[in-house]
């Protein structure tokens, strides 16, 4: 139990305003479609822009893959954003499309037709840009990992 608790922080990547926990392992046979749900947490008091911000100048949340091993990357599904007006906005401005608190990003893959049986890890990057009610912080990139098992 203690060992398990000690290991928990190692499974999470944090960069100040946002943290990503390693997705639960996905498994499938060759040519199968698999989906990984990546848990993301935004620090209390902050928000990050959604994948489709309400203004062209804003930096979207975006997941990209560096290496996916035996998995072929497919569509990334972002959750429904929160549309909210913030204290720093002017009355005539559109509310912002943001993520707050905990949410999941669904990453879809197809197991390659020639994938060898066994384990592997897909590694990606999540780019985000965070703000509080009074200040914004430079865009950051955080590593995302998805462990998989080809059956």
């Amino acid at each position, binding site marked *: 139990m203690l060992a398990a608790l000690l290991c928990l922080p190692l499974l999470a990547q944090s960069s100040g305003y946002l943290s990503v926990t390693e997705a639960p392992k996905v498994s499938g046979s060759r040519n199968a479609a698999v989906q990984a749900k990546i848990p993301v947490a935004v620090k209390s008091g902050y928000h990050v822009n959604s994948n489709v911000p309400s203004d062209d100048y804003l930096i979207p949340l975006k997941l990209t893959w560096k290496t996916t091993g035996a998995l072929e990357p497919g569509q990334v599904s972002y959750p429904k954003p929160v549309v909210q007006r913030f204290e720093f906005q002017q009355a005539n401005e559109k509310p912002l499309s943001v993520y707050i608190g905990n949410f999941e990003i669904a990453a879809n893959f197809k197991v390659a037709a020639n994938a060898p049986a066994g384990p592997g890890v897909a590694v990606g990057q999540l780019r985000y840009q965070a703000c509080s009610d009074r200040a914004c912080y*430079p865009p950051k990139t955080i590593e995302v990992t998805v462990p998989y098992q080809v059956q």
Partner: protein
Amino acid sequence: MPRLRLTTVVPIAAVTLCLLQSCNNWSAPGSVKAASVKPDKQRKDAPDFSLKDADGKVVHLSDYKGKVVLLDFWATWCGPCKIEIPWFMDMQRKNKDKGFEVLGVAMDDEGWEAVKPFLADLGVNYRVVMGNDKIAETYGGVDALPTTFLIDRSGKIAAVHVGLASKKDFEDGVQELIQSPATSARGSAVPALIGAK
């Protein structure tokens, strides 16, 4: 017990009152004291820099010595910065003939490609230069945007605002600095606009 004459009591009372009201910090009627502006002795030199403006011209902070400068670190993706920029445009308009300049430092990784259209959209009326991590480091890191420095006529940092501040606080700070003469390194007053461009 000797009786005190009115001619003795009045000057003593005036001096006492003056001391109670901190004679040294006495301000003329109509002058402004901003809470955020540090006393002269606590101010440190604003680091000089060489950064390019939208026309590719190299700008040094030292070019502005003798002027009060509002140095604003901002980015196009920063919502709170967009609130303050029109305030700064207003201050630039009202005070440019009083030895005051706003200087924006854009912190966009995408550079002028992102910044120029934004400046045009807002009709920004002051000079903006392109910043970088190195210059941000010399100003203490500047992680949160907006971060705004009020620099006095001697090139010293008189106030720092991290995050969205109030327009009144900026205006009070700017007015206080505009009304103050420049001081030399030894602290003596020098003419306010020496070296101003």
